């Protein structure tokens, strides 16, 4: 039982961490930009967490206009990105050039159905239609075609850093526990056994002694 609970605990923790990293770290999609638009969104609903912030320097309101980049993936499926500043907040992309990015995206827009203009969009986040959650585009650049090979160096490096940090802390903690905590626990254990031994012996003195 304790074994399963332990795995459940660490398993959920690992899943949450992995999901968090998956959401936060950059990914790159190769797409055809179909359209760019501005749409008003109302904040404060269930998906508030998944919107970023207004353009740096502007007031924070419950409603604002957000840039969107509507695209088509190489397999023909639609993908819609929002295009918002992250400013000085989380996640740390320090993106202030939202309006410029929208301009670049518009410049890469396909003019008709056969237009083979391909673009690589680096973004973070996921698309969840059920809660109107959109990934946030970070950079966009023109690429030759849908087969271009893109290696996600930044994500790889961040994963390695996070895993080595966890490994480092766990190793130190286990060593600390082995050296300093376990001996003390053992000693306390022995002390307790000793005391309870004496206590039960003392209780025994109250028992009626067998008459000889």
């Amino acid at each position, binding site marked *: 039982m304790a074994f399963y609970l332990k795995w459940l605990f660490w398993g959920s923790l690992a899943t949450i961490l992995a999901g968090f990293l998956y959401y936060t770290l950059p990914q790159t999609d190769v797409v055809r930009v179909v359209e760019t638009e501005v749409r008003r969104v109302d904040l404060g609903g269930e998906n508030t967490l998944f919107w970023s912030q207004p353009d740096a320097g502007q007031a924070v309101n419950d409603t604002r206009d957000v840039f969107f980049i509507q695209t088509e993936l190489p397999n023909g499926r639609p993908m819609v990105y929002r295009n918002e500043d992250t400013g*000085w*907040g989380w996640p*740390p*992309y*320090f993106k*202030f*050039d939202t309006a410029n990015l929208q301009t670049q995206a518009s410049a890469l827009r396909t003019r008709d159905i056969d237009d083979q203009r391909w673009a690589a969009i680096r973004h973070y986040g996921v698309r969840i239609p059920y809660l109107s959650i959109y990934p946030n585009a*970070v*950079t966009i650049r023109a690429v030759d075609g849908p087969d271009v090979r893109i290696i996600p160096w930044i994500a790889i490096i961040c994963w390695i850093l996070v895993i080595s940090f966890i490994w480092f802390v766990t190793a130190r903690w286990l060593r600390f526990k082995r050296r300093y905590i376990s001996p003390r626990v053992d000693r306390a254990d022995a002390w307790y056994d000793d005391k309870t031994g004496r206590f039960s012996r003392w209780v025994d003195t109250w028992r009626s002694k067998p008459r000889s």
Partner: protein
Amino acid sequence: MAFVRLLVMLLAVLTVVYFCVSIYSRMARREKLEREFELERLSDPSISPAEKDEFVKRGMVDYDGSLRKRLILLVYVVPLAVIGTIIYTVNHM
């Protein structure tokens, strides 16, 4: 304002990290010196155990002036450099 908030929080966190790393590094160095002393005593039994404190103290004075200790300042330098790099690549490239 958001910038000031980030800066203050970042500096607070980095200061905590800086102190943790320097304490850890001192501790590791001290343990290493103690081990070194025991090894030396193993090869030369004429050294008295009373010299251990003096040996460790001398080693720690050396450590205080070392490049290794100053390298801990990278705790501040690296994140700020990374942030600078991200700002440049995201907004100007």
